[in-house]
């Protein structure tokens, strides 16, 4: 497990709340608040697959993996 070393960065200025990252995160790490903003609901679940990052149309997610 590398989840401790993974940082999920969401650029709220660029995010357009399309919900794609939320829908495709295999681990349900991400969610949306009532205004549609992406929130990280289960960071510990993240497997750093970067699906969210690659699918995000707005370059708004950065998964930073700090392998130690």
């Amino acid at each position, binding site marked *: 497990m590398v989840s401790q070393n993974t940082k999920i960065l969401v650029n709220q*200025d660029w995010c357009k709340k*399309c919900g794609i990252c939320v829908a495709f995160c295999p681990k349900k790490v991400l969610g949306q608040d009532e205004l549609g903003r992406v929130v990280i609901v289960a960071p510990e679940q993240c497997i750093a697959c970067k699906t969210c*990052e*690659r699918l995000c*149309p707005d370059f708004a997610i950065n998964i930073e993996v700090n392998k130690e």
Partner: protein
Amino acid sequence: MFSDIAQYFRTEALPHIWCPGCGIGTITAAIVRSIKTLQLDQNKVVIVSGIGCSSRMPGYLDFNTLHTTHGRALAFATGIKASRPELDVFVIMGDGDASAIGGNHFIHAARRNIDLTAIIINNSIYGMTGGQSSPMTPHDKRATTSPYGNLERPFQILEVAKAAGATYGARATAFHNQLLTKLIVNAYNNPGFSVVETISQCPVAYGRRNKFKTPADMLLWQKEHGISAGRKELGAEDFLIGEIFKAEAPEYTQEYAKLRQRLKGE
């Protein structure tokens, strides 16, 4: 990973103008990753586009970028490549841009087999102008100018490219964006005219009218219907992804270079 490719972007121009959930952004990142993979000299890369949502892409990218007129990107690119063949020229077009108004330049670039990497972003619609049918809108689907369902048949654009003389054809989707990155790398490596058709989602001008509730639904559709060769028999809405054809033929700028050489000899 965006931080990895940020150097290829004009970040001051972001956020981009594309609608929430539009596939073009995803494809943009995939293209940039190909260029990164290829380790191309940023100063030698030229990105040319026509007009349309897809064609706004070059404005966000930090290369030599040229946003031309609707349908004419390949003709501009031909001038660039013929004049200075050492440049790496990528051409971004929408489905309408490439296959409607731009159809003629498309088949002639293919015929000349000029060394351009053409990426068609096929969202099945004229996005920029608000959702008219394009020559690649599937039969029966709705658009503002086919309010009763599209009467026409769409182009099989890779078939046309092949018949016209292109030497590389491949297809991927916004969803299959890692495949896309690989295919663009291969397309670039083909010394001739290469076409990568990329299925994209336009939730606003296409999805809404055609019963897709969310952008994610459209990506799911891509996931389900984009089939690698041999994986299964193609259903009605299915389409092949991966490399579709390869061929060999003389490349235009090389032939021209040979002519110059030959004339020197004379």
